[in-house]
């Protein structure tokens, strides 16, 4: 939602291109067109201080738009309008009508989108347009689209629009073969990249090549446990681990790999927040802890702590201390234990 407004404020800053720009009014090929000024009418609210180039380009755009002129020069004008005003969905929509009317080369169009996206990768309209073009090109476009999103991830590995586009490409046009390897590579680059974890989950649950979550669970759990042990403070693999048992709490509390990763992290005595929180959820779902696990929790308590009657209560007390920002939440969770256990 924020990107809707905030991320496009930086464009239209002065550049060399702007200095060289010849005003439309002085270009011979536009001499037959009368620009249509923006008519704000009375009671103008939040007027904008348009730059001259911006106002002129939009004035000419309005003229060809109203005349429904679907010509090569109109296509060129929408390019200019989009570069200074990529949020204007009317311009994009009209451009699509022109592309269809001219039967334009859509591969060239992909190059244009890439050019615009380099500076405006967080603009919704660009991505919608890209999808429109790719949809028309069909399955042949799949590999090019996957490569394109890779380029975007090279600049920003968490670009939300690019991830949406990539998921759409996979589902609509295919290209699943290397997706798990790509997630793997991104996670090797940055194990904290939650977008890559999410994509991994997307592949597990939706790839037609892998057999689904349950078939992949064992190997995925092993991979995730390794990631947790390497960085116990990383929330992403903890949530991923839980996700691997979505809608199957019974397997989750009964899988020894889950309780043992909690045990290992508790014994490390480093960042124990997510280990404790996972253990608490397990206990709330009926998990029966081993003596080893109880001892590991006890080892974290200090002598001044009053001995608690049950493990879950002790875990809540430890969480209050390990995670003071959410102390009220853990206190509340402690109070809820009486209702759930």
């Amino acid at each position, binding site marked *: *939602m*924020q990107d*809707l*407004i*905030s991320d*496009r*404020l*930086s464009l*239209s800053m002065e550049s060399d291109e702007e200095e060289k720009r010849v005003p439309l009014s002085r270009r011979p090929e536009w001499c037959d067109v009368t620009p*249509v000024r923006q*008519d*704000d*009418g*009375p*009671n*103008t*609210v*939040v*007027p*904008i*201080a*348009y730059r001259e180039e911006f106002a002129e380009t*939009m004035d000419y755009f309005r003229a060809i*738009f*109203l*005349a*429904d002129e679907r010509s090569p020069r109109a296509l060129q004008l929408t390019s200019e309008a989009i570069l*200074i005003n990529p*949020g*204007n*969905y*009317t311009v994009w*929509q009209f451009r699509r009508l022109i592309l269809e009317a001219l039967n334009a080369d859509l591969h060239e169009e992909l190059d244009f989108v890439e050019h615009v996206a380099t500076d405006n990768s967080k603009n*919704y309209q660009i*991505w*919608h347009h890209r999808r*429109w073009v790719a949809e028309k090109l069909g399955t042949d476009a799949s590999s090019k689209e996957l490569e394109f999103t890779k380029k975007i991830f090279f600049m920003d590995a*968490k670009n*939300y629009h690019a*991830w*949406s586009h990539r998921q759409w490409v996979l589902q609509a046009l295919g290209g699943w073969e290397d997706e798990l390897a790509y997630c793997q590579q991104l996670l090797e680059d940055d194990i*904290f*990249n*939650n977008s890559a974890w*999410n994509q991994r*989950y997307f592949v597990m649950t*939706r790839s037609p090549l892998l057999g689904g979550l349950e078939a992949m669970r064992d190997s995925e759990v092993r991979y995730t446990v390794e990631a947790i042990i390497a960085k116990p403070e990383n*929330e*992403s693999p903890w*949530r*991923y681990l*839980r996700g691997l048992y*979505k809608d199957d709490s019974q397997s989750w509390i009964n899988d020894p790999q889950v309780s043992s990763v909690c045990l290992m992290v508790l014994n490390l005595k480093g960042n124990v927040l997510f280990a404790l*929180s996972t253990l608490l*959820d397990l206990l709330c779902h009926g998990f029966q802890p081993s003596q080893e696990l109880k001892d590991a929790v006890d080892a974290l308590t200090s002598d001044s702590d009053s001995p608690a009657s049950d493990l879950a209560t002790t875990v809540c007390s430890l969480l209050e201390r390990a995670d*003071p*920002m*959410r102390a*009220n*939440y853990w206190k509340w969770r402690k109070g809820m234990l009486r209702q759930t256990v």
Partner: protein
Amino acid sequence: MDSILNPPSPDSNPSTQFERDRHVRFLEMMYQLLPSEYQGQEINRLTLAYFVVSGLHILGASDRVDKGGVINWVLSLQAHPKNEAELNDGQFYGFHGSRSSQFHSDDNAVWIPNGSHLASTYCALAILKTLGYDLSLLDSESILKSMKNLQQSDGSFMPIHTGAERDLRFVFCAAAICSMLENWSGMDKENVKKYILNCQSYDGGFGLMPGSESHGGATYCAVASLRLMGFIGDELSKSATSCIINVPLLLDWCLQRQAIDGGFQGRLNKDTDTCYAFWIGGVLRILGAHKFIDEKALRQFLLTCQSQYGGFSKFPRQLPDIYHSYYGFSAFSLLEEPGVNPIRVELGITDVDAIGL
């Protein structure tokens, strides 16, 4: 203008209090004239106006705008079908985002384009409601009837009939429009519900689309829509199993978004940002769980994003913009800052019914 473009030096101490008067002056300035940096948003002029007008109302300073003038301007952006036949032509008859996409029949044009947009329509109604305009005076029939054309078979909404991306943002806009017009004939609620439930991720948060990564803004759109549609209430007082969404996971996900610097992040392992104090703080308020956050730490974080010229920035010690300012004010409203009006979280505007007009 030069002084505005020079950011304050990073070592200057941030104010220790909410500078209401400076914020009012900042919005008054924006009301008079938005700097050219906003020109790329001209198509969303109603949204920009919503941030300014509704923002002034949250600050208790709506007397700074010409109410009648604003109301007339907003009303003038509504698209009206010429007749009953046109109403059924598959187009959406809501509000145009700005004058630049609105044309009149006397324009001597080959055709009269209709650029009505769901987000603009939401913002139009929000401004009108904030300013006390009686929404029953509107031709709501054409808005609602034509809005159905925008709903997709999977339950989602696209924002404009000529085609655009479909996600939870426009589900929220549609739900808020129905709620403000007190008429739900504009959508298939059960289908919307199904779509929203499909967007809840494995970690408890919501993504903008099924399969997408959990995101603070998307989570707000999901939870606020469910509240507006009456599918969820104060969930913490109920038993966990009775709710249509996984509340314990959602609650835990939201609360863990408050980071060590006190601010909220929109996604796991991302930087904190002013606006999520509202998006995620708002979800927690709807769930009845706002009491679990560290309010003092959040307040301190927000103050580092408060500009000395008024307004809020995305990240600490940057230049303010009206988007982050609006959600900064909303966040302070959730923190019950004295002198700031209470908001109706799920609508994203001042709680006009509670404070009276």
